[in-house]
């Protein structure tokens, strides 16, 4: 039977909001962090007590404060994207710096207690995941500053989408690392 190959396939015309490439990046990032959390949870099953002891060195309350700061920053970024206003976008980046401050104190305390990536598998994952995430916060702040300076709608949308991804990743890390293990 001859086929009509000119007809568009179902779903071929679906338009993604924002650029395709930012979605490729976001999906890739989420895959990496989810794989990290999956590895964390799998190793935890083999050593629940050890993970609980290790998690006792963290301060969930302080991390919760960091969560609130980062989510507020996400809200500012969303407003900035809606109104296309520079001050909200820069404000979001600045509040992001507040989150990094909280992280800095946490790492400083752990370093003071002589805790490194090799101390316990819990801390290997802890440093890897929070470190990777913090690196993304720094990258996101730079991106927000750049898109705020240029204020081109497509770029602002993509930059803010990246920032929401950074938020989302933290909201996944926070309960698994700080709350569930303890």
């Amino acid at each position, binding site marked *: *039977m001859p086929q009509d*190959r000119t007809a568009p396939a179902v779903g071929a015309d679906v338009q993604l909001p924002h650029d395709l*490439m930012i979605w490729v990046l976001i999906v*890739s990032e989420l895959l*990496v962090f989810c*794989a990290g959390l999956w*590895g964390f949870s799998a190793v935890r099953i083999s050593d629940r007590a050890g993970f609980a002891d290790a998690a006792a060195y963290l301060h969930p309350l302080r991390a919760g404060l960091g969560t609130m700061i980062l989510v507020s920053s996400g809200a500012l970024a969303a407003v900035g994207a809606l109104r296309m206003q520079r001050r909200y976008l820069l404000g979001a980046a600045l509040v992001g710096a507040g989150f990094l401050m909280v992280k800095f104190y946490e790492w400083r305390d752990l370093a003071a207690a002589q805790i490194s*990536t090799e101390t316990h598998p819990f801390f*290997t994952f802890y440093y*890897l995941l929070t470190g990777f995430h913090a690196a993304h916060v720094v990258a996101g702040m730079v991106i927000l500053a750049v898109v705020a300076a240029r204020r081109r709608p497509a770029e602002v949308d993509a930059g803010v989408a990246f920032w929401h991804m950074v938020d989302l990743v933290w909201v996944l890390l926070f309960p698994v690392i700080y709350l569930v293990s303890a």
Partner: protein
Amino acid sequence: MKYQTQKIALAYFVVAMALFAVQVTLGLVMGWIYVDGNFLTEILPFNIARMLHTNSLIVWLLVGFFGAAYYLIPEESEREIHSTKLAYLQLAILVVGTVGVVLTYFFNLFEGNFLLGKEGREFLEQPKWVKAGIVVAALIFLYNISMTVLKGRKTAITNIMLLGLWGIALLFLFAFYNPSNLALDKQYWWYVVHLWVEGTWELVMAGILGFLMLKLTGVDREVVEKWLYVIVATALFSGILGTGHHYYWIGTPGYWQWIGSIFSALEVVPFFGMMAFAFVMVWKGRRDHANKAALLWSLGCATLAFFGAGVWGFLHTLHGINYYTHGTQITAAHGHLAFYGAYVALNLAIITYAMPVLRGRDPYNQVLNMASFWLMSGGMLFMTFTLTFAGTVQTHLQRVNGEGFMDVQDQLWIFFVMRFGSGVAVVLGAILFIYAVMVPRREVINPGPVVQDAAE
């Protein structure tokens, strides 16, 4: 041939195929050494044969890439190559360097000499003067290609090719850094070895495959470009930190086990993307290109790369598994199918596509060429399965039961015999391929009459 300077590619392809013949012949010799351990021990020690087998592979693939670039860049940039003389000078330097390497390895000339003797680092054992020659040749090439692209039309394919080829040249500079600390040595060594084949070479692969799909299927350039950008992004995202899967057991900190496992597991994505890309383009394409053999090699390349590099790579990339399989025949199985699928088949695809154009004749010899595809690919797949089973048995005997290496090798003998047989098929396929693109002037089988809607 639209541009006269595309003819440069012919010389590169001929040199590449000559080295290809050398490479598979040495493979066959080594395959027999695995069967009869005393074969040629005095004349051609195993380590020398292995160096020649792997080095000639890398060199012919690179020469093929250069040829591919000289072929496709003029068509993409819509202008002649900047300098024909420089292109031939570059090839001459590479040939002299290759001959120098073979003589140095074979006769162990100037042993221990800083500049002239072999360096003893796996894959990077070339004497320093050859390494310097490679850099000079690469600089000539990059100058020549970049000047052509800068003055001409810029497309996604030329951008990706340039990014890949510049990356290859810059990363090679790490070959000159040889710290005395063995762990550090290995760490930087992978900057060349891994970031070539699982980074920059993938970009070249995406570029060449994109060009072939554009020509063979006639799909819109916009569609091809979108796919290429996604493939390149996922390749770099996973491949760069994927280097960590080489850092499990060399003395680097333990967190590399998780970085390596997670990122290298994602390396399957760009290879899946390339396979999906090739098949979707053929499905969407409306052009019925006469060169069916080139299409077969292109699809075969994307498919076998997905299995060899993607699936067989994933097979032993997680550190919990690699703890047992590291350096067994599992690695050899992966290495053979990955290089064959991703880069050998890619070169043979562009050669199959370009040679009829370069030699000014229709693709007469397609039946022989396609037969060589099935013979070579069938042989290589059989070799991969054989080595995979050998590696599984070896892992159990050696790593789980703790038996001695040579005792285990003896027990793997039957697999090595079968591997030798599959190697014969690969070599026959290679000879058939070279014959098919170089010699016949007419199709060996008369095509039947064309029938519309044959099923009705």
